[in-house]
């Protein structure tokens, strides 16, 4: 017979049969967090005779997750509550840890690319591009103009798609179900575009080192045009509805407030950082692809609460549409992959109809790019969740000797732990939605 779970304070070692040391450490952390509070209460020789902090026994420890639908994946929040208020919170992540940094060390650079789809699985295209850019920087590979424009456009499409999911799910956390259906209609339209462009709806894997896999078809350009014509009004419609919605404003206003200094100190990134008034966006900070050639604004709010983050993301969606419009207008003709057998895959025509092409294809699959020994580079992009950076080191072979992923959700979750403290337990769910973590990326 299994041991019936009891509340904390019992013998922790006996309570958990599964990973006992892990859970024990977690609860110890919850007890010792902000330990100075008790130190002031405990006078002189240590142990108090009654529990001064909680004489009436109001406190309760609640485990939210890892399998709770509102935690957006497998996030485990252990919160200590006094009544309805969260006194302390400890987040436990790693339930989706797949060791992709380790996996990357055993794969060629091109082979690893599909794995990046599964990191931030709400915007696979951005991850593909981030990985390819990092490898291109490491090996010094130049990318043709047309490929850069297409990548820029698709990254922005991925941003819209990710923000749409954040909006729908975030509102569902707050109790509104209908917006979820509307934003998923929008995501469906984006899936259709990705399907036409890349041949896959979800895990696209369309980017290649040195360019992209296939060119845009006329019908995909038509679909993109249709999307950018229709969606500004649609998004504006959602904003009109929500900006004056009493419940939505009340659930978000002054919840999880973070000042600019705190945000930097905690390492927040992306829309969460800009919602606190720090003007940091990698698209401006170190422009990659075509971001210094297009005209767009970076929305910033200074309030730093959930509502500010909501406004930032809504405005970002409209700015992304603006970028896609410009990309469509200025899309040049030309090659879509670098014409260099050492840098990028040859085109399928070459592979099928020439001996050299076939050899190059084989060599590229077998060995691939070989950056010089001792090369190291860090390249970051502004993914929908924030700064997504890859730090790569090469030992001169076709496989990286070290891959480190600086994932935005990981940085954001750390700050979430501090944001939760002092809020009520009902707002925890709204807060998680507002920070917008993706566990596939945070857990690596």
């Amino acid at each position, binding site marked *: *017979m*299994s041991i019936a779970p009891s509340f904390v304070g019992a013998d922790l070692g006996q309570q958990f*049969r*599964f*990973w*006992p*040391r*892990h859970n*024990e*450490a*977690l609860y110890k*952390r919850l007890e010792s*967090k902000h330990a100075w509070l008790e130190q002031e209460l405990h006078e002189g020789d240590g142990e108090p005779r009654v529990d001064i902090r909680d004489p009436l026994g109001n406190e309760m420890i609640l485990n939210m997750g890892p399998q709770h639908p509102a935690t957006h994946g497998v996030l485990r929040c252990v919160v200590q509550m006094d009544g309805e208020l969260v006194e302390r919170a400890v987040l436990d*992540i*790693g339930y989706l*840890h797949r*060791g992709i*940094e*380790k*996996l990357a060390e055993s794969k060629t650079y091109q082979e690893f690319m599909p794995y990046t789809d599964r990191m931030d699985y709400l915007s696979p295209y951005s991850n593909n591009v981030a990985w390819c*850019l990092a490898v*291109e*920087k490491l090996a*010094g*590979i*130049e*990318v043709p103009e047309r490929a850069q424009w297409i990548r820029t456009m698709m990254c922005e499409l991925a941003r819209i798609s990710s923000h749409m999911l954040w909006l729908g799910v975030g509102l569902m956390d707050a109790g509104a179900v209908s917006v979820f259906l509307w934003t998923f209609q929008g995501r469906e339209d984006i899936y259709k575009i990705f399907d036409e462009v890349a041949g896959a709806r979800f895990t696209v894997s369309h980017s290649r080192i040195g360019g992209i896999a296939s060119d845009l078809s006329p019908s995909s350009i038509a679909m993109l045009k249709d999307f950018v014509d229709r969606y500004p009004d649609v998004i504006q419609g959602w904003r009109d509805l929500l900006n004056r919605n009493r419940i939505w404003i009340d659930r978000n206003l002054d919840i999880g407030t973070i000042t600019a200094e705190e945000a*930097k*100190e*905690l*390492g927040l*990134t992306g829309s969460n950082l800009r919602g606190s008034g*720090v003007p*940091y966006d990698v698209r401006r*900070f*170190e*422009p*990659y692809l075509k971001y210094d050639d297009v005209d767009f604004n970076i929305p910033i709010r200074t309030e730093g609460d959930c509502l500010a983050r909501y406004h930032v993301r809504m405005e970002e969606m409209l700015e992304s549409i603006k970028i896609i419009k410009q990309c469509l207008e200025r899309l040049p003709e030309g090659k879509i992959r670098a014409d260099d057998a050492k840098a990028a895959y040859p085109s399928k025509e070459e592979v099928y109809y020439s001996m050299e092409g076939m050899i190059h294809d084989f060599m590229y699959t077998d*060995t691939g790019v*070989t*950056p*010089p*020994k*001792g*090369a*190291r580079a*860090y390249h*970051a992009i502004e993914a929908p969740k924030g700064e997504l*950076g890859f*730090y790569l080191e090469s030992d*001169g*072979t076709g496989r990286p000797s*070290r891959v*480190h992923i*600086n994932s935005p959700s*990981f*940085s954001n979750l*750390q700050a979430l732990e501090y944001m939760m403290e002092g809020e009520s337990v009902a707002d925890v769910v709204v807060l998680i939605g507002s920070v917008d973590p993706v566990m596939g990326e945070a*857990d*690596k």
Partner: protein
Amino acid sequence: MRDDQKNVAQKTAAHREDESLKFYFTPVDPPGPDTDNPHAKSSTLVEDILATLEEEFGEDILEKRAYAGEHEAIVAKDRIVDICRFLKEEEGFDYLVDLAGVDRFTEEERFEVLYNLVNVERGKRVRLRIRVDEDDLSAPTLTGVFMGAGWNEREVYDMLGIRFDGHPDMRRMFMPEDFEYYPQRKEFPLLGVPGSLPLPPQTPEGELTMDPFAAAHGSKPRKSYDEPRSDFEQLG
């Protein structure tokens, strides 16, 4: 045996001796300050900042390097906290973007820890690294300067086993505490160590699953309910 056949046989035998088909890529160009890199950014050209650091800390800045338009410095392990505090307070690098560990495996001082700091106003990014010896797997914690370093340091500890002295919460980040290895180290096998991480029982009352591939190894999970006997069995 014909002469040409003998030749082939000998060659094959000689080949078997060293047992593996080796394939060398011979990439020999040493990485230099490669400024024609098409992806080089102006934000990482921070020679002046590294020069300031050298003025301030002298010999504690051990080495300066550059590749792909990225300037970085290797600094003394004991002074990293002072250097980061100096960068934060005097030079305005008040945003820690990234902190990572590297396993260099065959090199002299085996592990490295990287620090990636950003100055948002000036648009600069600087990378520092310290070296950690395998015999003394510890480094000073940066949590006193940047609170956000906490989780990253836990990640480095979890993956490589470098302890950070003075860290308020030195638990593992991704793996459970019950796991006894450091998986990002080069000697850790890619397929994992069997039995190192028990999985939940397959039935509510069952034992922990020690072998994650039990089904593949022929074990049938016990059912949590009793199946009714089939007609065939009842007939005897």
